[in-house]
């Protein structure tokens, strides 16, 4: 039956149909829904979990594969960096049950801190990479990935991009394949990667790559469409869809389903039927440089950008020099970047940090939005966990000059992901930083997933909840304070105190995310007649508060009555509706 499926849902379906038994991931846009969808399949058929980070997720999937199960881990591109260590060596050990590493890149950076091209990892780790164009292929290629993995004894990368992961199209679903566990045999020459064994395995890896390159010529996922045109395009993933939309059957296509390794014979054969060949690929000239290395001359980044996304309009314009009539607004429009939600518990923290004029080492999550005006509270955001470790480096080089003026801000899920080691570094190396853990009981930005601090698994089972206070104390933080971020005075007092002490400290700002279903909102706030129009309430950056013709208003459809604005109003003009 054909169903309208999100690309990510189709990957989940493909894995399910391929008989996957183990999926472990850490959430990351645009990959999150794959693992979420997996959790919709029966527990008796597939085990799935949120791991504390991608490295742990990948290692556990590697273990499941060695133990004989078909296994998968899913991540966003920057998550692949975190799991790089285990997968480079898993490429040497190879697999037992099929192992698929699904990575979703984010060209255009809809929800990411960089725009890296994960295909480089496939080549660097010497694992084949498949790239689907739509949901149908997401489903088919996921199954193919498991088959190739077992056939060539190699982990297989499935590379998606945002537009494939987050587009819905029709896909044919089928029954699940019954894949019992494969027998496990102890084999230290294959699975114990000490030098003597790894030296032998490296030769196996190189031979395997040659065989894959050879096979790529005939793989059914690599297709030549000869439309008897002088123009040929080599493309994969979403760019095939853009090209089809732009050119239909007016050009020849080499559609690569396997984007690494690439068959030299296939490239030369395709080039021989075209006069001009274009390589259509977002981000880096990956296929383009492979073509050149095979002695085939192609156009690519000489006419297309290295940054951002492509579109069919861009292909039409740059290859056919055609463009549509486009209407333009008469003026520059005010941009609408995302903002912390009304009632967000992070807002109070950033309000206080800004007021105290602190240097704030930030991290990855909803709270990265604290960098934007009017809060403008963050100084840095690099990667998961860097808020703590980067602040350690800052404190060491700036010494007394920055003493009492520097703070780290990290979310609960991010802290469990990779904040703990940074904190341990501070304690071990006699630092005295203050770290605020924004404990909102969820992984907010990616759409509210559970984590080791929430007491629930991905399937909603109750589980032992990690205790942040004891955890911090255990690694040597003696000063741990818990405050409610809605209590601005208490928060400021706690910060003032902790910033002056000569030892490391942690402030846990505890209050659940405003969007959690368990959080019940009562009423909303309104602005009374005694408003003196000072504009203080507008500085907290709540989307529900606005000012028209000097009059401050609260939009009752957006406000959830958190009361933060009332705390900053100097004349108590803001009241909760039900109090008036």
């Amino acid at each position: 039956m054909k169903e309208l499926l999100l690309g990510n849902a189709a990957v989940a379906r493909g894995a399910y149909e391929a008989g996957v038994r183990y999926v472990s991931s850490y959430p990351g846009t645009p990959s999150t829904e794959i693992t979420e969808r997996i959790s919709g399949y029966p527990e008796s058929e597939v085990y799935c979990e949120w791991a504390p980070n991608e490295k742990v997720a990948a290692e556990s999937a590697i273990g499941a594969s060695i133990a004989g199960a078909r296994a998968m881990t899913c991540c966003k591109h920057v998550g692949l960096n975190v799991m790089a260590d285990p997968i480079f060596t898993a490429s040497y050990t190879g697999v037992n049950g099929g192992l698929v590493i699904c990575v979703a890149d984010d060209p255009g950076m809809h929800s990411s801190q960089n725009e890296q091209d994960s295909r480089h990892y496939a080549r660097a780790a010497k694992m084949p990479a498949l790239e689907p164009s739509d949901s149908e292929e997401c489903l088919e290629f996921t199954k193919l990935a498991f088959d190739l993995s077992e056939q060539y004894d190699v982990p297989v990368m499935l590379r998606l991009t945002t537009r494939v992961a987050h587009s819905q199209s029709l896909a044919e679903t089928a029954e699940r394949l019954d894949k019992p566990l494969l027998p496990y045999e102890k084999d230290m020459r294959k699975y114990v990667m000490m030098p003597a064994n790894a030296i032998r395995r490296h030769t196996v890896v190189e031979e395997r790559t040659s065989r894959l390159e050879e096979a790529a010529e005939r793989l059914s996922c690599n297709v030549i469409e000869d439309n008897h045109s002088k123009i040929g395009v080599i493309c994969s993933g979403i760019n095939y869809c853009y090209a089809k939309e732009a050119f239909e059957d007016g050009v020849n296509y080499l559609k690569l389903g396997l984007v690494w390794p690439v068959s030299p014979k296939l490239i030369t054969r395709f080039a021989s039927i075209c006069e001009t060949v274009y390589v259509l690929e977002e981000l880096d000239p990956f296929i383009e440089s492979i073509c050149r290395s095979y002695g085939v001359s192609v156009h690519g980044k000489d006419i297309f950008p290295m940054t951002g996304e492509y579109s069919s309009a861009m292909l039409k314009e740059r290859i056919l020099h055609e463009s549509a009539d486009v209407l333009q607004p008469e003026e520059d429009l005010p941009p609408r970047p995302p903002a912390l939600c009304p009632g967000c518990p992070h807002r109070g923290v950033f309000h206080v940090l800004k007021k105290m004029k602190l240097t704030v080492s930030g991290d990855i999550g909803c709270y990265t939005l604290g960098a934007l005006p009017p809060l403008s509270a963050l100084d840095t955001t690099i990667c998961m966990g860097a808020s703590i470790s980067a602040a350690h480096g800052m404190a060491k080089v700036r010494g007394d000059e920055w003493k009492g003026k520097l703070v780290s801000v990290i979310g609960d899920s991010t802290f469990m992901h990779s904040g703990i080691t940074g904190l341990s570094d501070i304690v071990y190396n006699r630092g005295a930083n203050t770290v605020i853990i924004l404990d909102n009981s969820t992984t907010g930005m990616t759409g509210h997933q559970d984590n080791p601090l929430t007491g629930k698994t991905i399937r909603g089972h109750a589980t032992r909840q990690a205790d942040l206070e004891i955890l911090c104390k255990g690694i040597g933080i003696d000063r741990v304070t818990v405050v409610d971020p809605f209590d601005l005075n208490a928060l400021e007092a706690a910060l003032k105190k902790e910033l002056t002490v000569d030892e490391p400290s942690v402030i846990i700002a505890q209050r659940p995310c405003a969007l959690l279903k368990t959080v019940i909102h009562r009423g909303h706030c309104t602005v009374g007649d005694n408003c003196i129009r000072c504009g203080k309430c507008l500085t907290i950056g709540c989307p529900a508060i606005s000012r028209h013709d000097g009059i401050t208003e609260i939009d009752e459809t957006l406000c959830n009555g958190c009361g933060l604005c009332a705390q900053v109003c100097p004349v108590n003009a803001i009241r909760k509706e039900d109090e008036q």
Partner: protein
Amino acid sequence: MKQTNVLIVGVGGQGTLLASRVLGRAALMCGNDVKISEVHGMSQRGGSVITYVKYGSKVYSPLIDPGCADYILAFELLEAYRALPYLNASAGRIIASSQRIDPMSVITGSASYPDDIVQKIGPSRITLLNALDLAKKAGNVKSVNSVLLGAFAKHSEIPFEIWTEALSQTVPQKTKDVNLSAFMAGFMESNPIS
């Protein structure tokens, strides 16, 4: 069937995703090929969001190019204006809610909300509804998406029964009745503010 391109724009959190799923399902029930491109992640936190819905006998790309949208369903007026470059310049139509939500730059006073948006877009290109009010009257402010779908339904080739069927199947069961009356309110709105 001829290909129809519908852009759905609004502010993250307004329910644009649900509207695209209802439309996608309705188009599918008519035997079309359908592609929908959604936005997840950061911009859902109150940023500008765009969802693309395309249907016809064969749809290649899930995205809509500038100048190629047959319809734009806009949940917010500034977002309608921002999406103008996507509209088919000669034959496209915008169906917009008159709701205004100030972006942060306007709230903080560093930018101002454009005046006379309807005039600037061109009144003949736009159908304007007080969708928020109609949604409230239908019983829930959150049913704005159904109001806009109702207003769009009048222009689309998709039969009325298919719309109500698709809507009933897509929205959460306990909100079904409210959404159906919101859809009717949008469909019946004979005197839109334009």
